[in-house]
């Protein structure tokens, strides 16, 4: 059974009196343990699709199921709880809290979202920081890190709660080519190490080829079958 499935999903934004279709009739499935990418030019609907999968938005039509949950049925609080338990997020702008150290940033989802006692957070934080190679930077603050290091911390933060799925929206957009490659490689390595499903969006051809499954979007529609034919993606 697919971890993520979109069935004939459409999303239309209403801007004043103008209707702007962002997705139309998109159906896809992503199996557990995949390393999948949504690719396409700007405005193709990658972020909209990720937002729907990440329970951050609701489809105008169709059905989005993540880990067996129809996310359209979740209310605001239930959605937040679902994201906190099942999902991890990596953002283009990193979005680390500047007043927290690296370790505290990674600890945030456990401490502030899952409400675990601080003493219980330590081992998990140490484990993911070790996995992303940032153990020696744990006491530093985001302002003291490079872009690549910040994204490593963001990946660690997304993984610390052992989520079923990590969503990354343009995770390499603010990184140079070499760093972008390393971050994508790190995400893949984390998939291998933790078995977490990764879905990221990108329009950067330099990192697309690292994805195992590619969903090409254009003008809100899937234009192709998965470019790298895994056993998971289909239209």
């Amino acid at each position, binding site marked *: 059974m697919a971890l993520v499935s979109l069935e004939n999903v459409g999303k239309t934004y209403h801007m004043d009196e103008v209707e702007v279709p962002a997705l139309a009739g998109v159906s896809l499935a992503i199996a557990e343990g995949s390393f999948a990418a949504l690719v396409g030019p700007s405005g193709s609907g990658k972020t909209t699709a990720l937002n729907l999968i990440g329970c951050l938005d609701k489809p105008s039509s169709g059905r989005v199921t993540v880990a067996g949950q129809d996310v359209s049925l979740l209310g605001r609080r239930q959605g*937040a709880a*679902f994201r906190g338990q099942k999902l991890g*997020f990596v953002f283009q702008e990193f979005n680390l809290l*500047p007043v927290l150290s690296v370790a505290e940033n990674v600890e945030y989802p456990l401490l502030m*979202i899952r409400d675990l006692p601080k003493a219980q957070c330590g081992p998990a934080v140490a484990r993911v920081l070790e996995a992303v190679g940032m153990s020696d930077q744990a006491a530093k603050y985001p302002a003291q890190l490079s872009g690549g290091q910040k994204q490593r911390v963001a990946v660690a933060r997304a993984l610390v709660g052992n989520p079923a799925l990590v969503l990354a929206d343009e995770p390499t957009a603010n990184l140079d080519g070499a760093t972008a490659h390393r971050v994508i490689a790190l995400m893949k390595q984390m998939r291998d190490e933790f078995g977490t499903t990764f879905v990221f969006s990108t329009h950067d051809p330099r990192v697309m080829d690292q994805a195992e499954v590619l969903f090409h979007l254009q003008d809100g529609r899937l234009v192709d079958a998965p470019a790298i034919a895994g056993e998971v993606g289909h239209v």
Partner: protein
Amino acid sequence: MFKVIRLALKNLTRYKRRTLLTGLLIAFGVVAVILFVGLSGSFTRVVVGQITDSVLSHLQVHRKGYVASIDNLPLDRLIPSPALQKLEDILAQTPGVAAVSPRIKFAAMLSNYVQTTGARLNGIDPAKEQAAAPLLASRVKDAAHPGTLLKPGEVLLPELLAKGMGIKTGDTVVLVATNRQGSVNGMTFKVAGVVESLMGPGGRDGYLHIKDAATLLRMTTPEISEVAVRAQSFAGVDKLAKALRAALGPIKNKKGQPLFELHTWDQLTPFHNVVRMIDIMILGIKIILIAVVLISVLNVMMMSVYERVREIGALAAMGTSPGRIRGLFVAEGFCLGLVSSLAGAAIGLGALLVLNLTGVEVHFGMANQVFALSPTIAPLEVVWACVIVLAVSVLASLQPAAKAARLEPVEALRHV
């Protein structure tokens, strides 16, 4: 809870200068309240203490209708001997009464053989008067008998009157008075001292022995204008007044009307209105403090939310509940109020301590009255000031916090 507070404190350090300025503004408000309450409270205590402890005492009992015409010092509304005996019995039996001093108040002509003028005088029992108005002795300058107000045959003259007529301690003066029946009598007295003026009723009166007053007024049986009553504690004045009113109420005159009337110090002096005005000003200062805290915390928190929209979006996307996001911002306002109010309280109390050590003198009135203030503030007042700041800080944070909690993650993440 502590983790939210901890994160809120860290968030306050993002814009150190802004937080510092806002905190200083709030602290300044708390300092202003503490200093104003401390100084005005001390001023009120000193002045009220002077008025009650050297002139009025805490309560006064008169024959019904006397106070309405007290400016005339009427001799036809005195408390007769049998009624005085009843009154003294009641006062002796009422708990909370510390001292009682009967007075005969009358107007007389004062002559130093060169000039003659009118004077207001109190016939007193010196020992009883000292017990009921213990600071009266401290107002007597050039006292002939330090520690004792006066002896029979002596008079204490009000300062301005003595100065105007060039009368000094040891001089002989003549007092001429008309009694209730219209009979005029005169007696010579030796000046035993000069009484400093004080604001309010009785503040420019002279004193003589109560027996001399009775003789001068040709009283066959002693009759009393007023009985000054000192309570065991200032805080117990109202309670004592209530008890005495209950005890005196049933005593009627021949017409079946109450024989006595009782007034507390605040009903007898216009300074009570100054006290009320000071209380209103304290309330005004507190309202200004509330406005300062409300506006500054609201401004800081709104700025804080506006500047962190993307971050709030990221926190919400990660699964932080709206309630937790709201809590984080309310906690920031709470922490800002807490730290600022504690700092303000510490600075304010320190300033009061310095004022106490250096001393504060207030010149008041036309008679060169100087009051040495010892500004203090009740701990409860400080706690209240801090609680008000905290409550208003939390109140001011609610709207920005609610706005942050309502942000849609998708919209917030798109915010530039």
